[in-house]
């Protein structure tokens, strides 16, 4: 079942572009990565789905319900962590979390304790006294507190130190195992690669690619590094080879095409060393943006 269905969603702010004709689905239980540089339309898409802003055209559905008509119902089962966290400055962390929890049915005392201890959050400090990273932690606890079925994470790791980031990722994986669907927006490809099953790449307001992380990497080029005696770059001057570089007697290049042909070609050499690697998402990503 699709948890999120977006079809031809378009948003213009006056004349300036938000997103144009964006369509995609997010299935139940998956972690969907949403990547693109700043200003590509990631936050716009999330804000449309949360009905914070209204679409110019097209529609978005969450849990099968239209976001413009069933906002309150949908939001009952949604957790949202904004990229920049702002809460009532005068409140204490504990009061804010209690205020937030009180909007949902159930008792979340245990969960509040568990999450805040995990994220090492000091509950009795005022929001105004917190650093950016600590506010972000409040955001994480607040977003997960009511055990939502769908999580919107908008650049969630900014401001968190690497140790916290790891804890946060573990937490998200744990939630995901319990069946929580995650919509993970980021411009940092490494973290999307670590966490997500599928990715959508957005550029200047339009989706340019939606695919499995795995097939995105497989259907793309390979990174090949060959070291052999007397090897010259010209040896690899065949179709499908790009970006040939020589370094200390070894040759690097990207290859896209029949891998058998390439392996045969390489096996004709007397090798010192050879590596065939998946390109990182980063390298694929740059490819879309060139």
């Amino acid at each position, binding site marked *: 079942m699709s948890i999120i269905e977006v079809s031809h969603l378009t948003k213009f702010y006056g004349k300036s572009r938000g997103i144009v004709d964006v369509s995609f689905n997010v299935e139940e239980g998956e972690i969907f990565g949403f990547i693109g540089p700043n200003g590509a339309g990631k936050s716009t898409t999330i804000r449309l789905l949360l009905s914070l802003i209204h679409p110019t055209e097209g529609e978005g559905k969450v849990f099968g319900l239209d976001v413009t008509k069933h906002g*309150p119902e949908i*939001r009952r089962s949604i957790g*949202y962590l*904004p*990229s920049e966290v*702002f809460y009532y400055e005068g409140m204490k962390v504990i009061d804010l979390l209690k205020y937030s929890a009180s909007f949902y049915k159930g008792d979340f005392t245990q969960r509040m304790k568990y999450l805040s201890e995990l994220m090492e959050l000091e509950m009795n400090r005022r929001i105004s006294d917190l650093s950016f990273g600590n506010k972000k932690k409040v955001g994480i606890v607040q977003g997960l507190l009511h055990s939502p079925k769908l999580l919107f994470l908008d650049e969630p790791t900014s401001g968190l130190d690497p140790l916290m980031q790891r804890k946060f990722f573990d937490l998200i994986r744990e939630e995901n195992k319990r069946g929580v669907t995650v919509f993970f927006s980021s411009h940092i490809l490494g973290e999307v690669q670590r966490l997500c099953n599928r990715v959508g790449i957005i550029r200047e307001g339009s989706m340019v690619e939606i695919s499995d992380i795995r097939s995105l990497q497989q259907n793309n080029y390979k990174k090949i590094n060959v070291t052999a005696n007397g090897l010259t770059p010209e040896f690899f001057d065949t179709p499908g080879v790009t970006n040939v570089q020589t370094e200390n007697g070894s040759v690097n290049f990207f290859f896209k095409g029949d891998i058998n042909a390439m392996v045969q070609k390489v096996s004709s050499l007397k090798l010192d060393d050879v590596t065939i690697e998946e390109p990182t998402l980063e390298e694929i990503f740059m490819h879309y943006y060139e």
Partner: protein
Amino acid sequence: MNKLIFKHEFLIRIKSVITWSLSVTTLLFVFFSFFSVFSEQAEMMNQVLERFPKELLIAFGMNDMNYHTVLGYISFYFLFIQLLLAIQAGNYGFGLVSIEETEMTADFLLTRPVSRSKILTSKLGAALACMLLTDVVMWISMFTAISIFSEGKGYDLSTLLLLLFSVILFQLFFFSVGLMISLLVKRVRSVTPYSLGLAFGSYVLSAFSGVFGDVKLEYITPFKHFEPTYIINNGTLNTPLVLINIAITILALVAGYWLYLHRDIHAVS
């Protein structure tokens, strides 16, 4: 109405209610403490005022006044209380939604499982409760001040009550018009300039409306709709003007709801 939002909104305004109530009370007592002076020397006062240009007196609502009676004296300074209440109501109206947006907490509130109309109704209810609380304090202070300073002079209770209760409609006007304007402009960075502008602007309109007798500015300013001297001298509200006031208030509220339901809440940029 959502109780949680109501409570939250009420509590964040409680300090402001205390401040405004104290200001109104102080003003009321300070003015009333001069009552004995005015009432003793009413004759001299009238002679002094006769030398002022009539337009000026009209502008300050000081024509047709009886400083030596309790109600006459109240009608003389009630304008200043109205001015304070107008600023307070304007503050609440302009800030009702906009403060949440400038401080970026709107994202938090609007991602809760509550509809926008419920959010606005709860906020509105809390702000009205706060204004009403200020009014109650003002009413109590008024009767206390009268009992202390009136020197046993009698007055018509029903006329006074009419004047005192009229502030509710008076405030609602500034509140709802403020709310509507705050939703029409792109972003209200600071509430006070707007509410001061609306309050003093309306006051100035009312003052000028007295100077140029035939210019119909009184139609749009609550200071005319609820002019204290009119209420005290006639013992009744100026019904046509009050109806206009109510119509504008309702219109502004309806527009406010519509604008809020269709509003885009922008991210930090």
